[in-house]
């Protein structure tokens, strides 16, 4: 199988060609799995009118690492689709919030399990499915529901993405990925949902065959571009303190 390497030279090469108007999935739940270096490159690359899909738009914490909120501040975002579109404490004001309140950026607030399942559905060729999450709430208002076996469910549609930006722990040159611990989160399902999958990798990229086929978390046929993350300060390696 694939003998051609998927390794690209650097983060800027990795995000090359991402077009205006793309729907981009951003991996990560808190720090683990967040593609900080690829987001930094996307800020430089400058693609506009993006639809950004991720768990959050980024928190109010400082020092900040690159996040969807920075792309918003940089004028690159048309819409976000997240399970958090406000700060978790009422007193938190996200960098994203004023743009949303002024109507400069649109947002869709989605239950986290529905977000995950919509991504997985897109990657599984399932155009729509029913879920109990959100029934009877504001997010279900005006939407299609259906009673199945006596229970009410909400119809949800797949969320296909043009690009996924991910961070993994290990990869081989064929693109097979392994994530470490809670880093896995949205990685495998965003790789399924996207047409172009770009991954920053913590460990040096392994030769083909170094990962046992039973231990692959995301098969290489779903992965297109790999960049090994060089040591700080050339690349972003957040510390515990920066991410608490």
């Amino acid at each position, binding site marked *: 199988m694939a003998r051609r390497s998927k390794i690209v030279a650097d983060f800027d090469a990795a995000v090359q060609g991402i077009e205006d108007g793309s729907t981009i999935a951003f991996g990560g739940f808190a720090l683990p799995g967040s593609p900080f270096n690829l987001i930094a490159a996307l800020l430089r690359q400058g693609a506009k009118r993006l639809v950004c899909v991720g768990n959050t738009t980024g928190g109010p914490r400082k020092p900040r690492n690159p996040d969807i909120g920075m792309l918003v501040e940089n004028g690159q975002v048309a819409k976000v689709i997240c399970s958090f*579109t*406000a700060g978790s404490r009422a007193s938190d004001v996200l960098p994203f919030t004023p743009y949303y309140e002024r109507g400069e950026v649109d947002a869709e607030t989605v239950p986290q399990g529905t977000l*995950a399942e919509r991504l997985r559905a897109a990657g599984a060729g399932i155009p729509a499915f029913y879920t109990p999450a959100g029934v009877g709430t504001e997010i279900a208002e005006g939407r299609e529901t259906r009673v199945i076996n006596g229970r009410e469910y909400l119809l949800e549609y797949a969320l296909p993405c043009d690009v996924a930006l991910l961070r993994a722990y290990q990869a081989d040159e064929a693109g097979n990925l392994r994530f470490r*611990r809670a880093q896995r989160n949205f990685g495998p399902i965003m790789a399924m949902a996207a047409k172009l999958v770009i991954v920053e990798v913590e460990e040096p990229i392994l030769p083909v065959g170094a990962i046992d086929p039973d231990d692959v978390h995301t098969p290489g046929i779903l992965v297109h571009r790999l960049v090994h993350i060089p040591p700080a300060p050339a690349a972003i390696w957040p510390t515990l303190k920066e991410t608490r």
Partner: protein
Amino acid sequence: MPWSRPEMAERLAREFQDGWIVNLGVGMPTLIADVDLGGKEIVFHAENGVIGFGPVAPEGQEDIHLVDASRRYITLPPGGAIVHHADSFALIRSGRIDVTVLGSYEAAANRDFANWKVKGAKGGVIGGAMDLAACAKNVFLMMEHRTRDGAPRLLAQCALPVTARGVVKLVITELGLFEPTGTAFRVRDLAPGVTMDELRAATAAPVTE
């Protein structure tokens, strides 16, 4: 004297049954992971796909790849497992979670609760709460009895947009442990020295013994 937060965590954990799979929501509920559960076998599940996690990691021994739903650096004792986000919520939606303990802005006697949107906000903080609330076998709330301004958070009906309807089994606050009955909050336990009069004054719904 009202319960402290660790006391609330300890009291609520006594309601867990041996063998339960327990999901702890963001904020106050995560304190429960540090409670001594005695002989009970409890498996803690975090929405980000960590199954069987343990207490917070000691300072200096944190694993940068291992956080729970509240971004706390946790531990993963032997027997734990990791799944991706879709599989984690598959466990939730398919009813594998015996109880989810969630923080909340409001709890209602009719068993609704509201924890995702504050007044006047355009955005929301749904996270995993709507999936958990709709699908866990039991929903327990761990919350403050009143707002900072002293307004009651235990109501006959929610004023804020609800997270799920008719699902709350138990509510613990600093004043006591309560069971919403549909029309009232039945007192299961009171913090030491808290009187029924005090409780009624702090609650905007009928309270029964």
